[in-house]
């Protein structure tokens, strides 16, 4: 991941993702599937279009995704 300047980070927060993105409700509905695909090493972004873009634009959903990913990664498979 490229280190962003402070300005770029601020602009990214204000302008949000440029491409199509899911809503918060859609993101929550697909969160468990997306995380399991990630843990399995599958192409989660191809399987769930718009999910990653929403995480870029929504800090709350991003935090919840990070938490679930960390929790599931620590689980026995």
């Amino acid at each position, binding site marked *: 991941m490229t280190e962003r300047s402070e300005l770029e980070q601020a602009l990214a927060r204000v302008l949000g993702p440029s491409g199509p*993105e899911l809503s918060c409700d859609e993101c929550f509905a697909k969160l468990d599937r997306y995380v399991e695909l990630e843990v399995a090493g599958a192409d989660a972004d191809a399987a769930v279009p718009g999910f990653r873009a929403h995480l870029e634009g929504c800090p709350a959903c991003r935090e919840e995704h990070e938490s679930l990913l960390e929790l599931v990664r620590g689980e026995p498979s």
Partner: protein
Amino acid sequence: MGASKSSGGTAVAASTLDPESQRWLRELRSGGETQTAAVASLHALLLRAARFEVARRRATLPHLRGGDFDDIALEAADDALVSVLARLDDFRGASRFTTWVYKFAILEAAVKLRRRAWQGREIPLEPETWSLFATEGATPGEEVERTELLAAVQDGIATALTPHQRRVLVALAVNGVPIDVLADRLGKNRGALYKTLHDARRKLRGHLAASGLTLTVEEGR
């Protein structure tokens, strides 16, 4: 918002689920002692996930005591249990049942923790922090570019957005107010607020494009 989130979809045939997920659903719907035991196991699972979330965020809430965190985790597990039991028919088997239920506990705990972090704090609705990152560390050429871009962004915020869009964008994207906290204060739900933010961002991008500015913000991961 929390428990108001929909998991979407309709019930799926049990045969499409993995055996462990089938067992959870069967026992949670069975009635009697089996169901009671399954609900207790589910609550324990949710409490574990809620405690996990609380532990991750503990450092961001230095004013809370250990007992406060325990209470938040328990409340989150209780609320998540209600959500999960009300949505069993929504489970589509797209993941393991345990992964599906964890997300409810994490959501409930995360929302409660954000609310506690902002309890009693004023919500800034004006773009007071722009000056913090306007020109710091820039070369003279970059500084001109940044000044122009920031001026266009500020102009777009001031002129292209509705008052509601402006309030929401400034609070969420400029001043870092958590979306659940702002939703509570404005009497909205998270989904509606994000839609407002999304529309405001689209207008702002359109305003910048109309001003002839090229956006070079790199999409991160």
